[in-house]
């Protein structure tokens, strides 16, 4: 694969490119999904190809070819250059300097998920599903996934890296229904569970079957729970929902390509401006957010990004102040700071974009119980159900699967259909506590969408439960 990448880069330079890089990727994925004790999905897919990115006269071009052959490498390079030459606009693109990377990276794992028989995966799902069963639970579902990606990257500046990533994940859902009301509970996360860059040991440690009875019972209990009342109150948010809060209201707005407007037509832009760096008050002094592509187990962990920039750890928000952006080499050059490190492409057939790697809310201190203990009257919110945020990432509304009233520092009755809403800097400004490292959990999600044509990124967030004052909480509104 390295020779093919070198050939593609040479062909691009020969066709007039001033810069070129090539990525050859072989990806295999398995998904097993069961629903109401039937196998719904049992898929084993493999895809491979080469993607070539070029700069010609300051204009980008990208083309790909599924053939991992000399013909495929040449064809992709020639087409990328032709597309760049035809691109309209007055182009000038600089790339932040970076030392040409040479190296390898491999996921640390104990049990290769592709050595685990599909039949064992099916049986795990069916067992977990049986444990979800409850009188009012109408739909039970379980799924597990595994992915291995072998990637070689070569650039015209002399970078040459080879990496192999392995991911695993799983999750369960129980949908309860009675008298026209439906309620759902999930574990360990909504929307497909949680994944990690690890071996099968990650899925085993999730304990899907162990957690299932609680999940099924809570789904059924929600049918009789009162709706969450609308009020301005204190909320304590669990680590899983905090993952999405960080993702949507910190991760996306700090992607520097959004700040410069290149996602305007689809995912949107950002309320942040380049000049806000180092001065904008993003939240309270309890807010510390870090981008870390070295986190063990993170889905955004790598040796090198898709521009050959080595992994690293950077503060994004420090004590409530905007301290960094997620960047590419191009956007880093534009803002005159850093050298990128957040460029990732979904597979071989897409151009790399600025993406989150692993973005963490750093732990504070104390336990979840202590956070709740500090609330006289409020609501505890757990597990995402719905999510929406405006195109500049200011106004958001999230719904959670389950909530509990907090009274006198203790959890009270269960509430259903809770939503909460806010404006990003105001909301983060109301953060008054983050629980400690013992409550900090790494969640991995695989459905972060961006770009045209669309790309899915796999991203991890480490978060602890957190407490916010004066938050508008509501019922389906």
């Amino acid at each position: 694969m390295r020779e093919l990448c070198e050939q593609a880069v040479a062909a691009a330079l020969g066709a007039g490119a001033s810069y070129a890089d090539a990525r050859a990727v072989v990806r295999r994925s398995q998904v097993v999904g069961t629903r109401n004790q039937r196998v719904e999905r049992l898929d084993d897919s493999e895809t491979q190809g080469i993607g070539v990115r070029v700069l010609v006269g300051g204009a980008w071009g990208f083309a790909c070819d599924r053939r991992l052959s000399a013909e495929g490498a040449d064809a992709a390079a020639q087409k990328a250059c032709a597309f760049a030459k035809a691109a309209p606009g007055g182009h000038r693109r600089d790339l932040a300097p970076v030392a040409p990377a040479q190296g390898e990276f491999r996921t640390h794992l104990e049990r290769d998920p592709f050595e685990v028989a599909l039949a064992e995966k099916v049986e795990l799902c069916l067992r977990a599903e049986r444990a979800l069963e409850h009188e009012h639970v109408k739909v039970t579902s379980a799924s597990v996934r595994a992915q291995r990606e072998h990637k070689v990257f070569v650039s015209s500046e002399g970078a040459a890296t080879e990496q192999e990533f392995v991911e695993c994940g799983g999750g369960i859902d129980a949908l309860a229904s009675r008298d026209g009301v439906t309620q759902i509970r999930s574990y360990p996360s909504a929307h497909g569970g949680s994944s990690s860059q690890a071996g099968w040991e990650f899925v085993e440690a999730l304990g899907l079957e162990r957690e299932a009875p609680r999940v099924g019972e809570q789904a059924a209990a929600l049918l009789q729970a009162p709706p969450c009342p609308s009020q301005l109150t204190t909320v304590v948010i669990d680590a899983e929902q905090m993952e999405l809060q960080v993702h949507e209201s910190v991760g996306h707005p700090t992607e520097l390509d959004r700040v410069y407007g290149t996602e305007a037509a689809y995912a949107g832009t950002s309320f942040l401006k380049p000049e806000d760096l180092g001065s904008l008050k993003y939240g309270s002094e309890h807010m510390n957010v870090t981008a870390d592509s070295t986190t063990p187990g993170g889905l955004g962990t790598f040796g090198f990004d898709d521009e050959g920039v080595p992994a690293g750890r950077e503060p994004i928000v420090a004590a409530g102040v905007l301290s960094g952006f997620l960047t590419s080499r191009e956007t880093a050059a534009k803002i005159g700071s850093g050298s990128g490190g957040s460029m990732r492409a979904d597979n071989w057939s897409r151009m790399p974009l600025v993406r989150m790697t692993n973005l963490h809310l750093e732990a504070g201190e104390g336990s979840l119980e202590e956070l709740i203990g500090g609330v006289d009257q409020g609501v505890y919110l757990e597990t995402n159900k719905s999510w929406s945020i405006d195109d500049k990432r200011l106004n958001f509304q999230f719904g959670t699967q389950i909530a509990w009233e907090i009274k006198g520092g203790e959890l009270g009755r269960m509430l259903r259909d809770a939503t909460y809403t806010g404006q990003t800097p105001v909301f983060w400004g109301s953060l008054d506590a983050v629980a400690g490292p013992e409550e900090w959990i790494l969640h991995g999600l695989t459905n972060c969408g961006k770009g045209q044509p669309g790309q899915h990124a796999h991203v991890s967030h480490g978060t602890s439960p957190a407490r916010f004052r004066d938050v508008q909480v509501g019922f389906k509104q």
Partner: protein
Amino acid sequence: MSEALELAHRLLGAAEGEQALALVHSERSGMARFARSEVHQPTLIENDVLELQIVRDGRLGVAAGNRSDEDGIRALAARAAEAADSAPADPDFPGLAPSAEPPRTEGYDEEIAALSAEDQAHLAAAAIDASKLDLYGFFTSGVTELALASTTGLAVAQTMTDASVLALAAVDGASGYAEQTSWRLGGIDPAGASEQAVEKAEQTRGAVSLEPGSYRAVLEPPAFAELLTYFGYDAFSGLSLIEERSYASGKLGERVFDERFSLADDSLDPRGLPKAFDFEGTAKQRVELVEDGVLTGVVWDRTTAKRAGGQLQSTGHAPPSSARHWGPVPFALSVGGGQAASAHELAELVDDGIYVTRLHYLSIVDAREGVITGMTRDGTFRVRGGKIADPLVNLRFTVCVPELLADLPGLTRDPVLLNQSAYYDERYPTGMLSPAVATARFDVTGVGSGPGV
């Protein structure tokens, strides 16, 4: 026989099972994506995805790959067989679709098929050159072929073309939006879309806030189509109906919407992006979902139709196997037109309310009740005295779609085609035919950022 169908037959020949279905999904596409009036993400894609479904003793396994050489096909067949052997038998497995002649459809245009990468870049340039403001968006076109062959004698193939232009004219404090989609190149006017976006953007300067509350509203086709698409995933799916997650559960045959509202799923309509068959090879058919406000049907694939029992048959709405957990999907929604000549006429019907061009980041709050939240963007206005008045900042809405549909004072006469594909994974162009509508109830629950970038 097309190359894709030939490849499907080769793949089928490698299958070892009592039944097998081979599918080839080919894509040749280009997208010139631009921002601040210059192309920044140009992407050319060529790929053939091969998929094999093997049935052994009632057990189904699926494998996919993109190698078409003999070794690649053999390896793919071996993985599909292993998958089938690993699954327990499903007593409700309906078997593979029988051989059938798909309906004749339109949907292929030589002009689009002949577009080179340079042509695609020039069409993007036509949009950019026509804009007085910074332009964001893309021009894209592609040729997609779907071919299926099975041991039950199925042998179908369709080559489709599609082209879209998306134009967001935007500067600080102003933005306007327009889009066009067609399977014919003649149906696309990049410069026209660009000019329309600029005209809208110029009207959004000086946007003001709005008190949350329930408003009468005009929804332009992009806004109404997106809302209905999200509602339709669950409301009109046979799987959701079986699982009691659908708004239609227990309501089929009831008049629940305004009698001016009729909705079908119609992949055969040449005004849309026509499809002849679904991912199981079943012929597409038009399905009436709502007739004069009465809920009349949902869509089915083979699995859900068998599970539901009775005389139900697949309506030709099976999704790709990677999305089987969605159940059948109404990929080609089509709203019946009304009497109004224009959205401005709808504003007269609304008299006092708001006007919405486009929505952003929708999320389903409650599928069973049809509650959806999201934001407006790129052209939100106050309507006063039946006229479009002050521009507004982006509004958060949380609406119960059935309540929104219960009182529709008017719809425009001619539905337009809206692109419904964000081009994730393999290209499979989908679109919706929608008019603009006036509704008596659109619930605004908050305000967000202003227009512009």
